[in-house]
């Protein structure tokens, strides 16, 4: 019996995980279903675009510019070990566009937007605002979830594109300012080296990560427990789940795009 106890715990944990995956998948299908069926709530969608996209620009820009700059310094220092300092523009470009741009933007959105969506919806649930929506003949999945997830899918790829450009710019500033690179040559090398697939993968990742970030915020918010503790748990859980899922999805997408 003592030996079976850990196995039982493992089995229960596995079943709970599978059940949670099933619930999230069902929630995602419902959200997608509501995105394509009227009525559509334009104001909610516009506000979600503003909150997820426009208002995230400062944090995305700052993250990208510092990361691009640090990347240039690291690649220059690492490249110097085998006389390959000249690859800074190419590696900064590929590093930012293929990986760091989408992942950092995804994680920043998870921190900033997922938490905010989860806390807002969880508070609405705790204060009976979700019940009030239902009594006012408004489906909360359609009014709260669908606009946010759709906005995440649309606007995060644009944020990733902005992050990629600012990250490359950060590398350019450091490389031309303190590492002795020629500004025009640096840009030419960057543009020449990047391929269409790099950009497509970057934007696709942004779309998937945006969807994950918004979906997790909505899922945990809608399934929040009672009181302040429930809101806190929902917020924490949403960010954890979004961050892990974004990193896992990044691994799978990188494999799908570049290991074929």
């Amino acid at each position, binding site marked *: 019996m003592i030996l079976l106890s850990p196995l039982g715990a493992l089995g229960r944990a596995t079943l709970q995980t599978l059940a949670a995956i099933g619930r999230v998948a069902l929630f995602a299908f419902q959200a997608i279903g509501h995105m394509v069926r009227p009525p559509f709530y334009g104001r909610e969608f516009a506000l979600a675009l503003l909150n997820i996209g426009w208002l995230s620009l400062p944090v995305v820009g700052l993250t990208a510019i510092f990361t691009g700059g640090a990347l240039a310094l690291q690649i220059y220092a690492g490249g110097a070990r085998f006389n390959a300092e000249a690859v800074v523009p190419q590696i900064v470009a590929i590093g930012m566009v293929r990986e760091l741009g989408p992942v950092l933007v995804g994680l920043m959105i998870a921190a900033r937007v997922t938490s905010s969506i989860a806390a807002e919806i969880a508070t609405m649930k705790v204060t009976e605002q979700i019940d*009030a929506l239902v009594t006012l003949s408004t489906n909360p999945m359609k009014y709260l979830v669908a606009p946010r997830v759709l906005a995440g899918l649309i606007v995060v790829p644009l944020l990733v594109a902005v992050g990629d450009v600012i990250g490359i710019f950060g590398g350019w500033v450091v490389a031309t300012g303190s590492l002795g690179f020629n500004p025009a040559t640096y840009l030419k090398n960057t543009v020449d080296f990047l391929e269409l697939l790099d950009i497509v993968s970057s934007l696709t990742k942004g779309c998937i990560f945006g969807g994950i970030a918004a979906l997790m915020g909505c899922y945990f918010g809608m399934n929040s427990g009672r009181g302040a503790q429930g809101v806190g748990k929902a917020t924490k859980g949403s960010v954890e789940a979004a961050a892990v899922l974004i990193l896992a999805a990044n691994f799978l997408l990188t494999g799908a795009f570049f290991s074929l």
Partner: protein
Amino acid sequence: MIELISVEKAFGDNHVLRGVNLSIPKGTSMVIIGGSGTGKSVLLKSVLGLVRPDAGVITLDGKDVTTGDRDAFLARFGMLFQGGALFDSLTVWQNVAFRLLRGSLKRPVAEAREIAIEKLRRVGLKPDVADRFPAELSGGMQKRVGLARAIAAEPEIIFFDEPTTGLDPIMAGVINELIREIVDEMGATAMTITHDMTSVRAIADHVAMLHDGVIQWTGPVRDLDQSGDPFVDQFISGRATGPIESVR
């Protein structure tokens, strides 16, 4: 007419409703009393479909509430929530006119705003409140806005969930009077849950006492003091000892 037949609901091992039977005739005001945690809110939410009963049937005008067009069903209801449940991100008038700005009852924005201001005036609020946000209002004002939202689309049936909780006695009296007046002038069917006996006497035509998952007693409000039911007697007199204490 709203009818509940043998309605049961459990949350895990906690059997909140154990077979509730209750009829609320059209155009009357039914107040359900009972201690905290006795399932009054669950009962009310079961009628609206916010909580799905485990067993039993709830009918509205003879039709099972779980069947038929849900939007059309909900369009007949208005509800005042305990904490107001106003939407923080919307202004007061947008809260009141929520139903009039979207869905089957949608109308032009200017008209919806005009109706919202009229309803605010009906509950004793001035038009300058319309453009403020709920967080800028006192508890009593939020309750009034919630009441205005509940009546904005002229519903046939209005539910009030603990309408006076958290209010001072004078404001509670004002809200009670407003509810009674509005229910009378609209000819609406009202279902209120409360443990405030002042509310009961001000609002009710009929009273039902929910205890231990069933309706212990129901009758006209005038019979409340002579109910002969020890649970009701203890509850309305607020005695700490009696049959209710033994199950606490």
